[in-house]
């Protein structure tokens, strides 16, 4: 499973960090840092919640 963040869309609203703080963090510039782009399958529920919560649809999970 791979997290893909479209930084052209990201507005740094931070809902992904709210849902899965171990994998996403909004940085000083107001754009998301993906902390671990290839997480284990056991995190799928949290990561799906984070992807769904993005107000600008900047996140996708591949695989």
């Amino acid at each position: 499973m791979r997290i893909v963040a479209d930084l052209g869309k990201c507005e740094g609203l931070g809902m992904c960090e709210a849902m899965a703080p171990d994998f996403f963090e909004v940085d000083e510039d107001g754009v998301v840092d993906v902390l671990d782009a290839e997480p284990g399958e056991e995190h799928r529920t949290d990561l799906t919640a984070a992807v769904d919560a993005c107000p600008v649809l900047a996140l996708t999970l591949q695989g």
Partner: protein
Amino acid sequence: MSVERMVVVGASLAGLRAVEAARRAGYDGELVLVGDEVHAPYDRPPLSKAFLDPDGERGAGAVAQFRSEEVLRDELRVDLRLGTRATGLDTTAREVLLGDERLPYDALVIATGSVPRWLPGTDPAGPDGPLEGVTQLRTVEDARRVREALEAGARIVVVGAGFIGSEVASAARKRGLPVTVVEALDVPLTRSVGPEVGVACVELHRAAGTDLRLGVGVAGLDEETPDGPDGRRRVRAVRLTDGTTLPADLVVLGIGVRPATDWLEGSGVALHDGDRGVLVDATLATNVPGVWAAGDMAHVENPLFDGEQHRLEHWTNAADHGAAAARHALDPAAAEPVVTVPYFWSDWYGHRLQFVGTPRADEARVVVDDLATGGGLVVLYRRADRVVGAFVVDLPRVVMKLRRRVLDRGPWKEAVAFATGSEVPTPR
């Protein structure tokens, strides 16, 4: 009784999330989504932000559709009824009234949201018909009207210094247009963020060159004398209660909303005595079995804040509610309280404003105050010895960390230490 026919009324964010969640939960029965706009669900926050930007900028003039009609119909197997207004609800027969049509349901999610208020004499549905040059900002059609006026260099008067009005003012200033904002309160936004932050917001307007008139109401609107054959009414100026007259080509109303629940009057669904929002418990259940409510219109008790009842007009609230209401409607026995940390954001004059939690507090304390020197602002809200809210300008990195502290009912002192950067690192 298992659900064989689920109806969702309201095809904006909450309604969309409801149908998505229903399918994701494995629901295989009939799924109807009713919406009074002709468009498939689209994203509203950008309409007062990027949509109004000059051409060439990201999101300028573009409507962000969540899913196409084809995807909704073919992949999610939604019976999509767009351009269709719910006119009533028969809770005994379990039918939604769509004009002459009666739409039966086993489970119903109400998500009709809210409608902006008009000033007296400006409602297009009123006896005098539409008054051209006066608009709200809720739909994509409204946003196009505002954008066209901005492009034409219109003289704009905004009524209401709330978030929508302030974003319109920002869009005007970004194009170098003069703009006047009229606000009845002496300090704006006190209900949303409290007076301390309201004062900070006033400074943002002033620094950007917006002409902000506080503590003054609208006495009336002057109209052009109709001289064309059509005799249409058109606004010419806004008259204020202090005697001032402001010439205007476009008047944007940002004076709040009311829940869109006219169709529920007399249905038996319990409504709030004051604003007629839908009363629900912490699981979003109404007083009528099989009927659930989500989003802007729902008065809900939040267990996170001592059972404080609130009705939130927030994007994240609509999304969370929509999904939860659908899951609960399909499996009421498994319904759980919806615990959300209220969150909204707004973009003013190049600044990003963010709020998490509740402003109803014993104290609001400014703990970072560097806006004047190009830095950010952090205001924390305290209830007893807990942090219950945070307002942040231009410090996006700290917002979700403060949200976490609010969600965890975190200690006040630690939140202050974190926000001021004097936090003692805890060993891992």
